[in-house]
């Protein structure tokens, strides 16, 4: 289906104006102007035997199959033993869970309802998650219409790896699983998502897509395990907080181990290994946070890790990873685009890379890391590197320890601290061939930072010397375009110039 909204001057019916005219400090809700979803709900007071398609704890209706036609897995027709689905309000485009009654703990099959009569409910065999139970005329099948799932708990990971991309409503809207927050989802086993999407799994507080995070909380004892392990592709995980994953070992908090996934608004903290990891797969991280990670102090680890060419990371924050010399903020490899990221208060390097080919760091901040702001280790070749409009302040070694094998690229609009805010060893240590084009780089006045209150986690840019002082040149010779020039701030969180 194709929607063309906002044609001409007016807005189409059902279109709402955007909520946001300012950037709030906290998550902003979606305005859902242009996109629709097939919503499913998880709340700990629900039941994993429900269909998940409403936000009530109890299903709209529960039926046992009849002993006549019963449940037919070839046609999707479920004849009820008693009751009247029409009278109960069951309708087409609702979703129903059909399962083997005996011993059931979680839903095994949920399908879209395609027909309803006074004696039967028919479900789709294609717009489904799971596998339909076998045909039964012995009254051994149960159907639940609607109702929220209870979600993961202990060793139960349902429904993270149950919801399939095919489980869409009649309009074909993408499945969107809403995990209600408020109480931690306490786990003792890894939550794995091996199915391919597209599927969205996202936290909420009161209204789907309101930005509320759901928390996956692991143990603080025992051998560590991966908190959330995404081994399928084309999944979007959003608004999740992952905390704790054991006391020994070095397992990752949130791992992406398959290509082409997106993680948005996910925080990971107090885990044994890397916090958030693009584990040698293509993916994107947006507005994520990792702190208190790598408590195992494992080498080449820290808050956020990305290591496949083409991946990008926007507005992510790695801080207070303070496990020791390996408490790095960011680690990476290959060709990654970092924009508006902040790495601060880590005991290791703010950013440690290995064997890169093509890296861009645009408008990033590196503050008060125990070792280097940036540390380009590893590799054995000259690399392509662009560092533009970044701050390097009060790092314990170099602001930037460049690669021993040299660089080409762009080094422009960067600033370094001085006085008490100086980087201890040097602003930068270079090795030939250091062949970057260098423009508009300098140091701040002594003892100042460009931020509001970095020691309390506020790295919003306030200093006049950083505001509008970044590099923003364009090259254009034709049709008047040469007049365009930008005045970005130096650093991640732009000062308001309204």
């Amino acid at each position, binding site marked *: 289906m194709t929607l063309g*909204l906002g044609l001409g001057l007016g807005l189409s019916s059902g279109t709402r104006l955007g909520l946001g005219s300012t950037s709030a400090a906290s998550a902003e809700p979606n305005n859902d102007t242009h996109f629709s979803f097939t919503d499913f709900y998880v709340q700990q007071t629900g039941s994993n035997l429900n269909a998940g398609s409403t936000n009530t704890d109890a299903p709209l209706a529960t039926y046992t199959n009849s002993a006549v036609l019963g449940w037919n897995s070839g046609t999707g027709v479920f004849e009820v033993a008693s009751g009247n689905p029409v009278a109960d309000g069951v309708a087409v485009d609702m979703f129903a869970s059909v399962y083997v009654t005996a011993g059931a703990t979680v839903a095994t099959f949920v399908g879209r309802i395609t027909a309803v009569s006074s004696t039967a409910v028919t479900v789709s065999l294609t717009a489904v998650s799971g596998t339909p139970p076998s045909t039964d005329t012995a009254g051994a099948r149960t159907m639940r219409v609607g109702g929220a799932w209870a979600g993961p708990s202990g060793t139960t990971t349902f429904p993270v790896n149950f919801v399939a991309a095919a489980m869409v409503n009649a309009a074909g809207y993408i499945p969107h699983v809403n995990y209600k927050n408020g109480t931690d989802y306490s786990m003792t086993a890894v939550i794995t998502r091996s199915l391919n999407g597209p599927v969205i799994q996202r936290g909420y507080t009161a209204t789907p897509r309101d930005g509320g995070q759901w928390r996956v909380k692991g143990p603080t004892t025992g051998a560590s395990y991966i908190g959330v392990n995404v081994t399928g592709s084309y999944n979007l995980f959003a608004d999740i907080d992952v905390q704790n994953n054991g006391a020994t070992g070095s397992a990752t908090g949130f791992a992406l181990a398959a290509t082409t996934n*997106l993680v948005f608004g996910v925080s990971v903290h107090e885990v044994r290994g890397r916090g958030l990891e693009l584990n040698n797969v293509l993916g994107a991280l947006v507005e994520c946070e990792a702190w208190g990670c790598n408590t195992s102090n494992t080498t080449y680890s820290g808050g956020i890790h990305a290591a496949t060419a083409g991946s990008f990371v926007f507005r992510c924050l790695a801080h207070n990873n303070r496990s020791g010399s390996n408490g790095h903020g960011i680690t990476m490899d290959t060709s990654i685009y970092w924009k508006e990221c902040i790495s601060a208060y880590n005991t290791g390097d703010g950013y440690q890379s290995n064997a890169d*080919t093509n890296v861009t760091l645009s408008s990033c901040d590196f503050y008060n890391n125990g070792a280097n702001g940036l540390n380009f280790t590893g590799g054995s070749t000259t690399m392509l590197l662009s560092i533009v409009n970044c701050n390097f302040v009060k790092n314990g070694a170099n602001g930037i320890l460049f690669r021993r094998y040299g660089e080409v690229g762009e080094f422009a609009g960067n600033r370094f601290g001085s006085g008490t805010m100086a980087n201890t060893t040097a602003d930068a240590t270079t090795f030939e061939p250091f062949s970057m084009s260098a423009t508009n780089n300098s140091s701040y006045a002594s003892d100042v930072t460009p931020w509001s209150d970095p020691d309390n986690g506020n790295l919003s840019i306030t200093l006049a010397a950083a505001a509008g002082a970044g590099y923003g040149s364009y090259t*254009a010779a034709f049709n008047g375009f040469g007049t365009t020039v930008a005045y970005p701030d130096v650093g991640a969180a732009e000062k308001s110039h309204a």
Partner: protein
Amino acid sequence: MSAPVPTFQEFYCQTTGSNLNAGSTTSDTPLATYTSDLVSGWNATTGVFTVAGGADPVADGVTAGMWASIYVTAGATVATFVAKIVAVTTTTVSVALIGQHGTKPATDLLGGTTMRVGGAWDGPSGTVGFPFGFATCLTTDWSAAQAYIVGDVVGNTGASGGKFRCILGHTNQAPPNATYWVAETAGSPRVNIKNGVTYAITSGMTHGVTTPAIGACIFSGYTATPGDGGIAIFDGGAPATAYTMLTVSVARIVIESLQFQNNGGGSPGGAAGDGIRVTAGGSMVRKCIAKTMRHNGIYLGANSQAVECEAVECNTRNTTSGGNFGGITLSSGGARAVRCISHDHTGGVNAHGIVVTGAGVVDGCILANISGDGIFSTTSGVSGFTSCDFYNCRHGINLAAGPANPTVACIENCNFLKGSGYGIVWRANTIGTLLKCSFGRGTMVNASGDISVTEPCGIIEIGTKYLTSDTTPWVDPTTGDFRISSSQVVAKGRGRFLMTKSGYTGTVGYPDIGAAQKQPS
């Protein structure tokens, strides 16, 4: 403390020079020209060139550190070996042999070899692409089997890294052994191509000189001083069948401040007809302009960068035969376009601003006055489009029906105005974000609608903004001035940072929506 400053070993092209020169000075003529003598002549093993005819290099002012071109006299048209001078006597000039430009000519005792000291190259012309295809990174990777003489330059791929110059001849003494090596402080070679006169070429230039692991080479236009940003122009003429004007097929090459214009017509193959075509990873096209190209203006076929470039009037053929074409094409995972302006591609609906076929990022770019799409993407990977402006295109961003697999697309802080189609076309099976983007209204509306969605499509949409009727966010887009000026978009962009740690007050940014951030008042 201070910010790092690069150093370069400068070479020069100017149309009044000679391609037989060493290229190392700005004078048209070399400081000195010598013929090898008939006794000691040119020794390709020791690098010693003994001059004939009573010439005196010392008296001529030749000194160590200068550069010499040494070539077989007969039939020479362009330099084949340019090396740094390491010693000078009244009868000889000695040069380094390893880590120099080109390939040394064979030993000669017949007076058949010429040396030129200094002098500028005249650069590409007609079918000659020189010094593309000649200039090297001025280093080679150290080898245990290689015999080194004084002045040779190597890159140390060992753990300690660095670039080193030989100070005592030897074999198999790995750097940084201080008895034999000293850190080479001279930077990478930068070939400065003087502007003012157009370099007219009639066939494609290729730079495919094998690059060592450690080393880089920069080709840069200039006006008066190296690195001053002056743009040198290459004109490809009007052949019946277009050709790619410059192909860079090796890594760690920077093409900077060069303009490529006109490359012909007809129906070239898919890999032909571009302005600049980069096919190796780790290279950069910076501050370059591609104008009136049959296919792409700038093509990145590997994980390289196009930064601060302009592409205008590309894909004049308006074809999809052999690929999708536009001002800039990102055709590899990791390729990216930053602060580029791609505009006035008017060949038809297939003349796009930026084409994305691999995972990539487009950041801070301006796409305007385009008969095709601002960004036309068929990638099945992940793509990020951030802080860009789309004005007067067909679709602003067209995530066109491409591969069957889903894709990830994140679009944030972008303006979409006055498209003849949609602001954004989302193809089925896309997941992504749409954060703080604005859409025009009134005369600035996108004619078909703000957004087209083919389900299923899972996008996190936050803060979509609709501009006041008939207004734009910019100073004057009709004259190409895309500086952000409207309070409707200033500080209205997405700048959220997630911070959950207890006791932290949090960070928030207020970027403008669009590419060219407004200057603080």
